[in-house]
């Protein structure tokens, strides 16, 4: 088997309001292959805690939750 470089999926939800960051994250999870990493960036405050909640509810691994200058970044592994 040849290893393939996995660039993952990035979802940019900056300036989007409730519930778009959750919706777009869900669409990306649906589109991702098992093992693939989804990176979501956004500014909507509640989504920073709710996207990891959604990932955990779907038994997916949350690899990172960080924030710089009001922009958060969440990495989820499908």
């Amino acid at each position, binding site marked *: 088997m040849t290893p393939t470089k996995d660039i993952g999926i990035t979802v940019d939800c900056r*300036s*989007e*309001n*409730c*519930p*778009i960051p*959750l*919706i777009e*994250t*869900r*669409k990306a999870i*649906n589109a991702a292959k098992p093992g693939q990493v989804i990176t979501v960036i956004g500014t909507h405050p509640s989504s920073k805690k*709710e996207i990891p*909640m*959604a990932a955990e*509810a*779907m038994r997916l691994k949350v690899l990172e939750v960080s924030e710089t200058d009001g922009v958060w970044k969440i990495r989820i592994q499908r």
Partner: protein
Amino acid sequence: MAKATIILHSGDYDKVYSALILGNGALAMGMDCSIYFTFWGLQRLKKGQLSKGRLSNMHMLGLGKWMIKRRMKAKNVASLERLLKDYKELGGKVIACDMTMDIMGCKLEDFEPGIVDECGAVGTYIKEARESDITLFI
């Protein structure tokens, strides 16, 4: 799988928002979701009527709604059309109440195409609700 079942009885602009935001939220968090459109809520599924409802409060002959819509646009809140499209894309089910269709004299072809998954009555709702983790009446 966990499931949410919502009845949308109201056709008010803000309440249609509540139903679609909750439905999308449930789907996004890994649940199944069905929304039963009945009475005034069902009117919103007619072609071009989704965002035509009045505000449940402070409608003020349309002035209140105009102000709220302006605020929502400034805060980048998604349109009802987008929320319904996303709801369907994430696998949300739309059920039209057939008794309301009878009373109001509307037919399947009066609705936006591709939106209604099935027509149902109280039995369909109870069957789905009893296997749901969340059920709401809006």
